[in-house]
Every structure is written in structure tokens, then in C-alpha cells.
């Protein structure tokens, strides 16, 4: 059985408003986008749902603009990153607050083992975004720069700072 590729499914949605084609497209990428959204949201389910939902809807509204220069999944991820950035825009202060706090300040359980996901959740949204995109999702600095509307150099320096912060969080919370 031939399985329609993303381009064919997008074509069916655009030409026929075919909801089955859209559902197949959704099913194919839902898990990927959900996990990206969770990471961007630092494990916050409610925010992840909002990120994933809005990213899908925005992508659907702009399907005609998808030119196929990148993989659909990459294109879709760009929407998630932007939605996350908008939702977290009010959290800019978080960067400062987090930087000022001691890594041990909010450790509630003495024997808590802080793994990478918890450390990621404690990063500021800006740092978390670049670590997730580069180190976990494998995007290049050029791709990240395009998604975030910055230059590649900014992405690199942001990543370096984020990694240092992440390392400190992990070291500080490891018994």
C-alpha cells in the first residue's frame, strides 16, 4: 500500500479541504509536536496543549505557504516555537529571577534527584528554547535563528549560556 507523503496530504487539504488528509497529517506528526511542545513548556501539560493546538491551527491556516523547502515537521516546529515564545513573553522576568536564585532554593525534597527534564523546566524559557531546539531536536543554529528571528551568532551565544546554566543546575542538584 502506498502511503501518501506530507506533500500529497497537504495538497488534498488545500484542494479538497479533505479532513481525512488533515487527520492523517496530524496523526503522523502529533507525537513529535506534542513532545516538542512539552519540552518548550518545561513539562507544563496545559501550556504544552496550548502550544501544540495553536501551532497546528496556525500551520493549517498557512498551509498554502508551505513551499517544501524544509520538511513539514521542521516547518511545523517553527510555529510551536513562536507560540511558545508568545505565551512565555510575560515570563521575561523569569530569566532574572532564576539567575539570581540559588540552584538549591526550590529543592523541596532533600533526596530529590534532578534529572535533565527537571533542570530544563527550571531554565528560563529563552534558554530552554535554544537547548531544546539545538541539543534535543537537532536544529542548526541557522534554522533556530530563522525560527526565532535572530542571527545565528545570537543563537550560538544563547546556547552557550544556556548550557552553562543547565550544567550548574544539574551539578547543584545532584547529591
Amino acid at each position: 500500500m502506498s502511503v501518501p507523503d506530507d506533500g500529497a496530504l497537504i495538497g488534498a487539504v488545500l484542494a479538497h479541504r479533505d479532513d481525512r488528509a488533515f487527520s492523517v497529517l496530524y496523526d503522523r506528526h502529533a507525537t513529535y509536536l506534542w513532545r516538542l511542545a512539552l519540552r518548550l513548556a518545561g513539562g507544563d501539560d496545559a501550556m504544552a496543549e496550548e502550544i501544540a493546538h495553536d501551532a497546528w491551527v496556525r500551520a493549517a491556516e498557512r498551509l498554502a505557504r508551505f513551499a517544501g523547502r524544509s520538511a513539514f515537521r521542521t516547518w511545523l516546529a517553527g510555529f510551536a516555537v513562536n507560540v511558545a515564545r508568545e505565551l512565555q513573553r510575560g515570563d521575561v522576568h523569569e530569566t532574572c529571577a532564576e539567575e539570581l536564585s540559588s540552584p538549591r532554593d526550590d529543592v523541596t525534597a532533600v533526596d530529590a534527584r534532578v534529572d535533565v527534564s527537571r533542570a530544563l523546566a527550571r531554565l528560563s524559557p529563552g534558554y530552554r528554547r535554544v537547548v531544546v531546539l539545538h541539543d534535543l531536536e537537532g536544529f542548526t543554529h541557522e534554522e533556530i535563528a530563522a525560527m526565532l528571528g535572530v542571527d545565528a551568532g545570537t543563537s550560538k551565544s544563547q546556547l552557550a549560556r544556556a548550557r552553562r546554566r543547565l550544567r550548574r543546575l544539574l551539578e547543584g542538584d545532584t547529591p
Partner: protein
Amino acid sequence: MNAFDDRPPPDSLGRHVLRSVRRRGIVRERPALRLVRLVGTVLGAAVLFAGGFLAGRRPTAAAGTNGNRYALLFYEDTSFIRATGGSHAPEYAAWADSLSASGAVELGGELLPREITIAAAGAAPEQDGPARDSLGRWIGGFLVIRASNSAEALRIARSSPHLRYGGTIGVRAVAGVESGGRR
């Protein structure tokens, strides 16, 4: 490594997304298409059915050639219909396609709702909908598959998207072939 990496997307998210894109007119809602492609997938088997399967002749082109026959009965209820809203058709199609490609499917299809019950005295009144069992369920479709044993039949049944939408599946061995393979 990341605890939240393995969490699957919530089912409600898919329905929410689909509702939103429908509301914006990006896609059109189609009528419920339960098992619609399944019917096409096993159309050949249906022809065999008409050609004498009931008369006891073995289907000559059934995909599966080994193992026992099992009937999978796809039960639905009102909450199942509400949960799916017809959006599950592509999933069913993909599942049925892959099952059919593996050679396991002999026959199957969607059952239309209207049921006519007959008895020795003649036809009973026609029902507008399918007969419901004591749990309020009805059979929305069926498959006859080949499987080496009941465990494999159950594994196949469990892989169906039907369960994720809250439907239930009855797995029953076809009499006479449970232990001896093909008739």
C-alpha cells in the same frame, strides 16, 4: 532521560485541533466514515463471500493462508460515536491496510445500522438502528482474520484504533478451526 518525553499527546488535543480547523473552514467535516476503507480493502473477500463462502467453499484468494479463523466484532455505543465524530476513519484505514497487507484479513466491513429481524412467523418490525445488547452496545463492523492462536488474535485486536476511541472488540474463534488450522 526526560520524564515528560514519553508522554503521548492527549486524545483531546487531536479533537480540539480538528474542531478548530473545521471551524475555520480549512477542512470540511465529512459524514462518519467508520471502517469505510476497510470495506474497500476487503472488497475482494466480499466477492468471495458472495461466491460461495457461506456454501462452505474455502475462499481461494483470502490473504491469510495459515492459522485459525477469528471473528473480531467491533462494538460501539453512543459515547463512542460522540468521541470519534468520524475523525477516526484515516486511522482505521491505515490499520486495516496494514493488517490486510500482512495477509491476516479474510473478510470484513462496516455494518449499516438498519436491522431487519425475522422469525419463523415472518418478518418482525424493521428497526431503525442496530440491535443493542444488554450493555447498550451494538456491532458497528466485523472482521474475519487468520491468526495462529487466540493470543495472536487478541494482539491484533488490541492494535486496533477502535479501542482508543472507547469502543470494545469481541474476539471469537470460528468453530471448527480453533485447534486444527484450516478446514
